[in-house]
């Protein structure tokens, strides 16, 4: 019995001694930290996704208090969190622009055909290394769903060879955007009703040959746009959402029907 009790007492006693000394030292060497940092950390989602541009939720909380970072930068917590953070900081929260990921590709198995049979690792990055993927279009969604594996919110799924985003679940953290080897995913405002669904940078003729649903860079949308919001650069149209009025004229005019209009969004607003 003695062989057990003495070691337990010694190690336990040492632990207790050091614990007390440290408790005492922490009292003497206490660093005054703004208690708002801790409060903000508590209201943040704690996912440490890094979408705000800081190393994690704690780093963002410190940046808000010390460097005056915007209170609405958390795209995961959205308006509810922005409001709480603003409350703690004593400022008014501006509505955070909610953003969602959007897949700029409609190159389904039907629209663009395969140039070879791929039997390697089932991963987009690996596939993209092999002649730019098995689809004829070198900018297409590769369809192995590397983006789905990084999505912490189960918001992306692959249907018919193309990823699609469930905008109800998407928090706009941009994790998928970072891993896509063909960069077909971009973050756009959730309120953006008009969307370009292609990222093919080939010239019209080859774009047309490689995918039935490709932007051929004909600039019809550019001509019809009244607010100078849509432009063709690198043979693919892109919309400047700070100017777009969502009139939908470009979508009507597009000969390849690459520009889509989301109607159901109006009910969400």
């Amino acid at each position: 019995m003695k062989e057990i009790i003495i070691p337990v007492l010694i190690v336990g006693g040492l632990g207790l001694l050091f614990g007390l000394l440290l408790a005492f030292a922490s009292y003497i060497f206490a660093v005054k930290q703004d208690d708002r940092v801790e409060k903000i950390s508590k209201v943040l989602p704690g996912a440490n996704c890094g979408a705000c541009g800081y190393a994690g939720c704690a780093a963002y909380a410190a940046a808000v208090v010390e460097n005056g970072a915007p209170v609405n930068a958390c795209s995961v917590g959205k308006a509810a969190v922005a409001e709480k953070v603003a409350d703690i900081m004593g400022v008014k929260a501006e509505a955070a622009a909610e953003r969602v990921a959007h897949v700029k590709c409609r190159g389904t198995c039907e629209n663009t055909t395969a140039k070879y049979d791929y039997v390697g690792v089932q991963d987009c990055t690996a596939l993209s290394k092999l002649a730019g993927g098995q689809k004829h279009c070198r900018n297409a969604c590769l369809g192995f769903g590397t983006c789905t594996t990084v999505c912490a919110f189960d918001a992306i799924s692959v249907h018919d060879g193309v990823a699609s985003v469930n905008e109800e679940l998407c928090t706009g953290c941009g994790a998928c955007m970072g891993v896509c080897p063909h960069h077909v995913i971009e973050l756009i405002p959730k309120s953006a009703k008009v969307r370009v669904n292609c990222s093919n940078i080939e010239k019209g003729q080859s774009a047309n040959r490689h995918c039935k649903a490709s932007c051929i860079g004909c600039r019809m949308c550019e001509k019809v746009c009244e607010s100078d919001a849509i432009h063709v650069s690198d043979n693919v149209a892109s919309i400047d959402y700070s100017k777009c009025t969502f009139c939908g004229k470009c979508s009507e005019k597009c000969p390849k029907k690459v520009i889509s209009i989301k109607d159901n969004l109006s009910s969400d607003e």
Partner: protein
Amino acid sequence: MIKEIISILIAALLTENFVMVKFYGICPFLGVSKKVETAVGMGMAVTFVMAIASMFTWLVNHFLLERFGLEYLQTIAFILIIAGLVQFVEMFVKKSLPALYNALGIYLPLITTNCAVLGVTLLNVQNGYGFIMSFLYGTFAALGFTLAIVLMAGIREFLDENSVVRSFRGFPIALITAGLMAVAFMGFSGFSI
């Protein structure tokens, strides 16, 4: 006595350098050796921890563990002491040297698991050093660590300004440098007083 101290000094600094010959404490050696300034700070923190830990562990070992025949508890008791000391150093550095605290980052609490610290305390016991010799060996070994990490940081600062083959930039060239330094330190082996 003096002769013995000098021989320990030379052994700890050169012939049995903790990083270069015994390969202890490689984690901070590679992690905090990007700038000479932070490397010196890390060296000082490790020196403090190793010197104090050597004394404390000698006291605990001599007055508690050996008396009750509990030598088998050395590792766990020493780790406890080291962890407590590191925690204390962290508080102290955070309070008085915030710039160093930010520069050391995660490597400061990681001194706890720096095997150089545990290694020196266990070697003190193995070599049968007394209180003063334990303290001196701990200090000298830590100075050897500081020497290695500061030399490494100096070389890495120099490397940053030179064009290195692309695939070797960053850690690969650092590892090659470390290997070459270890080879250089082998030149001291056999040298003793």
